[in-house]
């Protein structure tokens, strides 16, 4: 499939040839209306989280890039497991801020792994990259979470 102008704009942003507002402006004018063959992705934040920034940009990205992406804020452990059934994502991004989530995630991961087709799980944490649960988490940093959600989405596109 040919690269659309919305994806070209994304690449320009990722390579620092376009700033964020210019990217959004481009996406406003030239939305990608074709659903692209990317994996189904669910972006979730856990119940204790109040930050919408990453989810907002993930929503905009999914609308603009034709991603199969759903966003779920403030999920309890039970709700998060339900998303695996309802959305059946191939990739689960958990936007996560705090050390206090670490034990919750350690409980959740084995349950996720028991699913018939477990998704690839990545943790968009405050360490400025797509990081795995065994990484040490740091204190809250909303911009880091937003950036790491972007980074995780970028991995799907690139």
């Amino acid at each position, binding site marked *: 499939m040919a690269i659309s102008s919305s994806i070209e704009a994304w690449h320009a942003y990722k390579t620092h040839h376009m700033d964020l507002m210019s990217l959004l402006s481009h996406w406003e004018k030239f939305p990608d209306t074709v659903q692209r063959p990317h994996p189904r992705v669910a972006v979730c934040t856990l119940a204790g989280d*109040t930050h919408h920034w990453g989810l907002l940009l993930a929503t905009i990205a999914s609308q603009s890039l034709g991603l199969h992406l759903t966003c779920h804020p403030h999920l309890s452990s039970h709700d998060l497991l339900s998303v695996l059934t309802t959305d059946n994502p191939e990739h689960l991004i958990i936007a996560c801020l705090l050390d206090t989530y670490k034990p919750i995630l350690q409980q959740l991961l084995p349950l996720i792994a028991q699913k018939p087709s477990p998704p690839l799980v990545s943790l968009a944490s405050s360490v400025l990259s797509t990081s795995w649960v065994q990484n040490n988490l740091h204190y809250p940093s909303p911009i880091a979470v937003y950036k790491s959600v972007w980074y995780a989405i970028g991995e799907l596109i690139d």
Partner: protein
Amino acid sequence: MIETSIHHGVFEWHDIWQHLSPQSLYQLHLGYRGNFEKKHSSGDPNALEMAKKVEAIQSILCTYPPPQGLWRQCPCHVEDNTLHIHLPHAQPICLTFPRQDRPPYRCLTDFVTPEHAHITMMVVTSGAYPIDLIHSYVASRRYQEALIVHALYVQSAEATAEHLHAILQKNYQGKRYSFGYGACPDLGQQVCLFEILQPSTIGISLTSSHMMNPEGCVSALIFSNPDAYYFVH
């Protein structure tokens, strides 16, 4: 004698905007590259256009309920790394802070001295998250406006904290420290601050991870010692 009752303030949006940080708003949240203030004052078309978009959203947010805050000053004393906050007719509330493991081995409690033996606690909010407004912009593919609403909402809470701190500083000088950052990283101690200020009266609650809900909130401890400064561990 310190007056220890809880104070409540409702602020004008116009006063809050004066305290917005251009760096945080334009560079951090809206991704502007370069020094926004310099570019804006030099008449850069992109900076001017972005400022115009922000002003348009400000005029919409001004129709929303105004920011509010609570604050309370209490006497206190310290024992090493622990701050004991004295409330009338109640047991002291204790907060423990980490001490640097390298010179100068600083801990927040060092800023409480016999001359500065009181602490001010504050919490402010820019109100409920404007989710409907943001959703309507996203649904109509007005992404820039959606992001500006989010950025202004979050930064308005910071600006309200600055505004209130500026009002309080008319009486004393000091520094404002928030849980989850540098000198007082333990967000769990928000529970104590909530016990003292009762922020549920202005619609603020704590999540299970001790973050404040709604998102546009700032809480802080003010150490009213002119020698107080910011440090990390």
